[in-house]
């Protein structure tokens, strides 16, 4: 695929193939981009805020974080471990979502791309 070689022409890669313009207009692509962004943008804001809340509380809510729950297990430890739980959970949910919602759309677009290239031969 020399036409997608990013090194030619050199200074700025020229447009590679008009097929991308076609694919960009496809309802499948519009839906893929919408569905992808609708998941990752809110999810990123959510996990970053949740993490920053943890950091800020560790700094400035010392009494609350030091509260002992069971034996020597305090709020700070549970809060920290909850960060592990939410990370695992979000990773799992994203995996389900992308396999179920995003991958079929991406596959159809990729197939269309391959079919178009082969049709030109």
């Amino acid at each position: 695929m020399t036409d997608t070689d990013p090194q030619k022409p050199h200074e700025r890669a020229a447009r590679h193939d008009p097929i991308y313009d076609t694919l960009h207009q496809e309802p499948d692509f519009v839906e893929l981009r919408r569905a992808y962004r609708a998941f990752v943008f809110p999810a990123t804001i959510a996990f970053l805020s949740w993490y920053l809340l943890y950091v800020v509380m560790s700094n400035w809510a010392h009494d609350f974080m030091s509260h002992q729950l069971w034996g020597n297990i305090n709020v700070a430890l549970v809060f920290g471990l909850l960060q592990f739980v939410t990370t695992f959970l979000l990773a799992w949910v994203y995996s389900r979502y992308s396999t179920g919602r995003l991958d079929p759309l991406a596959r159809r677009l990729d197939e269309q791309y391959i079919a178009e290239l082969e049709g030109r031969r």
Partner: protein
Amino acid sequence: MDGDQLLTTALFLGVVAITVGITFWASRQTAGATDFYAGGRGFSGVQNGLAIGGDYMSAASFLGISGAIALSGYDGFLYSIGFLVAWLVALLLVAEMLRNAGRYTMADQLAFRLRQRSVRTAAATSTVVVSIFYLLAQMVGAGALVALLLDVSSDTAKNITIFAVGALMIFYVTVGGMKGTTWVQIVKAVLLMAGSALIVVLVLAEFGFNLSDLLGTAASNSGKGQAFLEPGLKYGVSDTSKIDFLSLGIALVLGTAGLPHILIRFYTVPTSRDARKSVLWAIGLIGVFYLFTLVLGFGAAALLNKGDMAKVVASGGNLASPLLAQNVGGGDGSTGGAVLLALISAVAFATILAVVAGLTLTSSVSVAHDLYNGVLRRGEASEGQELKVARWAALIIGLIAILLAIPAQRLNVAFLVALAFAVAASANLPSIVYNMFWKRFNTRGALWSIYGGLISSVGLVIFSPIMSGKGVDPVSGKNLSLLPTSIDISWFPLENPGIVSIPLAFFLGWLGSVTSKEPDAVERYTELEVRALSGAGSEKAVVH
């Protein structure tokens, strides 16, 4: 040399022999640039997930974090949490799109639509700087470890170790390329998980698997009481240190997805779906590993006696895990203790070797593919020429790292890695994210953001208390900064620059883009979007 040292030396040589064997085997499977740079893109998601774990769980995690917890209690735990949560940035925003849009390096993705000679120069520069910071951390860890095991504290012994590690990593990379490096990382990940799981079980068994008892003993043994289990022991002493903690936290969570040696791992799998799968595996593996370090750190605080703790303190915390292994095996002088100490040290040594190989490979690929071929030869160099340059670059970068590691030996390795994260989050992440998600982003924005982030993060460290102005420790009389006490150039109060340099780099990326008159490459962005999201036209795996 007594029996224990003989055992240790034998295990170390065993690790070296295995990795050298893997490297020779891999060199016979390596034919062209895609093999050397990206392992032929033929690794499965699980294999790459293990290799990412092997690349990421560095000596800084194994030795540094457990050491930080052993010394500062709960505050050391923040490193683990930041290092783990950071993977969500890589999973959601970076891994799959980078795999689809690029070829071998971080710069490929930028060069897709920006003026490539300038952005390749910038991205290669920051790749090399971040990798060298990270390399220093690993080599310092190696020096400390060997000095402990052979019971020599002389600088010569440490320097010889650093030199040997450097020579090995140059060998792995120049001979084995990405395939060799990946297999070394996979083997190391398995060894590290198994070795630390063993110590964790032994530590927990001492407390009847009661975590609360373990924590209680750690707290009372530390002499700091409940404060040892609460946040603030290290970072809560003043308002400045609290802001430093926040700054560290931000750098950790945003740094991972900008680490060049992690980014190039996404190119070693056939599709973006495999890249996602590898990140999922990595998250599981790394998460469990950091839970282990929590037990190792508190376990060291709970079980080590005063003499051992003094060694841990003297090493900046780096020796907490190896000494803990010796302790749970039966203590100093016992056979069990000697075996476990040797075993864990060999695992740590394997860890260091795997990580330094990944780092050296990353920077040499960037020098050869981006600087040499992309910039100097304007894309005209042959594959053979490029690979030759990559091997030379590995040699030179390795030598630079060796020379720099020798004076850096007094720093805690987790801290050095945190600095690498701050630089990665400042110099790399903003342009990666802008390039994928912002149509208006252009060459000037990328350059301002990369150079601005790089210069501000490294510059602020130079003028921070790390370099000068901390004075001497009132107890030990040791100089706490890197420069001699007679020189004081510090004016920036924080040890971690992230809180300033990361927002600054994002701001510069925006400002550079909106003030540039460069015409928008709309059709290139269209293509980037389609290709990044759907994988249409992305680089395929090599079929041999």
